[in-house]
């Protein structure tokens, strides 16, 4: 608060600074109107073909979508709020590879992890659905294009909204940027993006061993519950994937907790081993799952009775699908589906069965269970997605955040999986018993689920940018250690044709700048001011004649006054 004193001091300090002019000469302060965090569009090579934004540094004037048609935008950063995004404009510019100075997408305020107001879905559903569709389309365009200029995402806030309003006003009137009308320059200083070393992917597994009857525990059949935890999105630094596949991870952790309660008591310890696996590399054809399964020995692999993969189970719809790659007539599949179907009716869910054959020659692995199926392990994926996603789709995109998942849906899914598993393990199929009743100590713990969902919803998890010892990986490992035994962390190198580049986030400096014309004009005014001052002083102190004589005589000769 001591600004008065401070100003006095600053005044005096300036004198000192001037004395130490050498120091000042190297000082470069940035008095920007605003500094905002921005997140760069992903840059990657797929089999050597470049995709994404190929540049990081930005230094251009800001523009909005209200420019005159046909204007040259190759030196303009176009600021586009996604709420009012014109998809045809984007399609035109990216599809036809028209030159731009850069693109800055403004994501709605509620997408920011700092935004706390109303959590959870439900409100304004049509608007959300529209926004989601726009973002999905935008993301698909961006990540499959080779863009030669920097593309950034930022969250809307008061400062940036004010800048945008100014820019729009100028563009609408068609005025060039001047000091008085407020031209803005957007600057991101960044080095050239560099290739990252082939990313490490980390799989975490934990066991809940069943009760040995007599002999080796490995003789017991195993049920695997698997969820892939990493994400891929247009902006890796904000790709949190609350639904894909944060919801699956949350469900897995909670199921592990519930069964650990049952398995610690010898009376309720089942005759099945439970294997929990958190796998990485999900967006890249479930590469982590593949590596993880390969690391098992044959006996273990054969002991797996079946595997349930959890993928995107947190959205509001009341319908889930069980995706399988064996024909539905298969006895095991039938058994699993029956189990889910019966429990689903009790928790007001609909579960459908979808069968998709595997084409071994096709490298694309759309579902995690397909990696199991390729090794002849019975497996199914529980997901809300009715159709198999394409490569790099539904893996935690721009829209996939906390506001688009519903806790209620996750609770229901957890109950569905836990209950049907428990009935299978304890041989209670078809009976209407409620093992994980809501109010019992075996009920789903909402606070626990919420806290994990919140943690995952603010942690970007794109594998190339997650280190081996990332706090999140450590947290997941610790959580599994708390509930299961023999927790094992496996580090593998992601194979495949992906090469990633660094620089996922940056600081954007917004400067209000004057145009060169303004400075030229200023120079003109100042020049004439000094000339007038000079003439005035000469006339008042020496007389008009002297002034005239100054121009008559050559300047080298001294003018003598009487």
């Amino acid at each position, binding site marked *: 608060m001591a600004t008065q004193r401070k100003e006095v001091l600053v005044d*005096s300090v300036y004198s000192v600074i001037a004395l130490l002019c050498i120091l000042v000469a190297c000082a470069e302060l940035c008095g920007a109107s605003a500094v905002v965090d921005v997140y760069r569009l992903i840059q990657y090579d797929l089999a050597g073909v470049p995709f994404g934004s190929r540049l990081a540094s930005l230094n251009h004037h800001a523009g909005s979508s209200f420019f005159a048609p046909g204007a040259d935008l190759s030196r303009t950063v176009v600021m586009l709020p996604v709420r009012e995004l014109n998809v045809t404009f984007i399609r035109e510019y990216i599809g036809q590879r028209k030159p731009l100075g850069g693109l800055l997408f403004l994501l709605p305020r509620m997408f920011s992890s700092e935004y706390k107001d109303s959590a959870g879905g439900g409100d304004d559903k049509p608007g959300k659905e529209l926004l989601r569709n726009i973002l999905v389309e935008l993301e698909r365009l961006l990540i499959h294009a080779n863009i030669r200029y920097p593309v950034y995402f930022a969250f809307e806030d008061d400062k940036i909204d004010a800048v945008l309003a100014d820019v729009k006003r100028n563009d609408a009137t068609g005025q060039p940027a001047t000091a008085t009308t407020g031209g803005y320059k957007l600057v991101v200083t960044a080095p050239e993006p560099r290739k990252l070393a082939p990313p490490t992917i980390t799989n975490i597994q934990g066991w809940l061993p069943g009760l040995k009857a007599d002999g080796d525990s490995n003789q017991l059949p195993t049920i695997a519950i698997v969820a892939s935890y990493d994400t891929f999105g247009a902006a890796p630094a904000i790709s949190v994937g609350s639904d894909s596949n944060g919801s699956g991870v949350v469900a897995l952790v909670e199921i592990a907790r519930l069964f650990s309660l049952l398995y610690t008591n010898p009376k309720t310890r089942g005759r099945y081993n439970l294997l929990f696996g958190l796998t990485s590399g999900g967006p890249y054809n479930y590469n982590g799952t593949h590596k993880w399964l390969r690391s098992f020995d044959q006996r273990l692999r054969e002991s797996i009775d079946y595997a349930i993969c959890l993928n995107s189970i947190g959205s509001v719809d009341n319908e889930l699908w069980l995706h399988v790659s064996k024909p539905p007539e298969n006895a095991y599949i039938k058994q699993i589906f029956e189990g889910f179907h019966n429990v689903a009716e009790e928790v007001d869910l609909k579960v459908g069965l979808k069968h998709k054959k595997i084409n071994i020659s096709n490298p694309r692995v759309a579902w995690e269970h397909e990696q199991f199926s390729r090794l002849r392990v019975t497996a199914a994926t529980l997901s809300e997605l009715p159709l198999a996603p394409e490569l790099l789709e539904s893996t935690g995109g721009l829209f996939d955040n906390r506001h688009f998942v519903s806790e209620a849906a996750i609770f229901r899914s957890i109950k569905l999986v836990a209950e049907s598993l428990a009935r299978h393990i304890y041989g209670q199929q078809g009976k209407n018993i409620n093992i994980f009743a809501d109010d019992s100590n075996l009920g789903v713990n909402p606070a626990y689920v919420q806290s994990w969902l919140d943690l995952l919803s603010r942690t970007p998890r794109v594998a190339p940018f997650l280190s081996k010892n990332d706090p999140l990986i450590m947290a997941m490992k610790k959580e599994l250690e708390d509930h299961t035994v023999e927790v094992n962390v496996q580090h593998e190198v992601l194979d495949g044709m992906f090469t990633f580049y660094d620089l996922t986030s940056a600081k954007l400096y917004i400067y209000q700048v*004057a145009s060169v014309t303004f400075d030229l004009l200023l120079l003109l005014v100042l020049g004439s001011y000094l000339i007038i001052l000079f003439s005035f002083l000469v006339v008042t102190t*020496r007389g008009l004649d002297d002034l005239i004589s100054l121009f008559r005589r050559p300047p080298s000769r001294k003018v003598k006054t009487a």
Partner: protein
Amino acid sequence: MTMFHFFNCAILTFGPHAVYYSATPLSEYDTLGTSVKAALVYLGTALVKLVCLATFLNVSESDSFDPYQELLKALIGFIDVAGLYFALTQLTHRNISQNHKFQAVGLGWAFADSVLHRLAPLWVGARGLEFTWDYILQGLEANANLVLSISLAALGSLMWLRKNKPRTLIPIIYACAGIVSTMPSITSYLKRGLGWHFAEVVGFELFVSLVMAFFSWQLFSTCQKPSA
């Protein structure tokens, strides 16, 4: 472009001093030495002032205008007058006329003030990309300050160097000198006590400087008459 803007602001801040020196007879009588000495005296004064401010001024709790603190600041501001007195009377100048002496001292004084207070912010700020009117206004303020310094030097030379001045004018001279030397306090009051914007303050300073220049010119010329 930013260097360009810096250049513009520097012209506005320091140009008038150069113009004043070259346009008036100061350049012919080679009074540069006097100006430099005055500037050095200003430096010393600034140091003394700094020490005094740091010693006597309390850290005020609020942002508001504190009359007692401001009074103290104004008193410390009078060290400037003492410095000017020293520059005008004690320095052994070459034998130049009183008429030119005060101008040279005022000019050196104003120039040193501009360099110390404005060059550093200008160098740091005006080269940045961000545009503000502040540096242009600051340049205008430097102009007002030049006029005020010369007026004060003129009044000072009337007070201390001229012996045979009309008695009726003496109180007026002292009043004018008082006003001019308390200008820093007045502007600080306007800025913080009344919450004026920088542009308004600069406008006021320009206005006052012109008025004071007119007064001191009139006073100087009336004092000149009997002897002339």
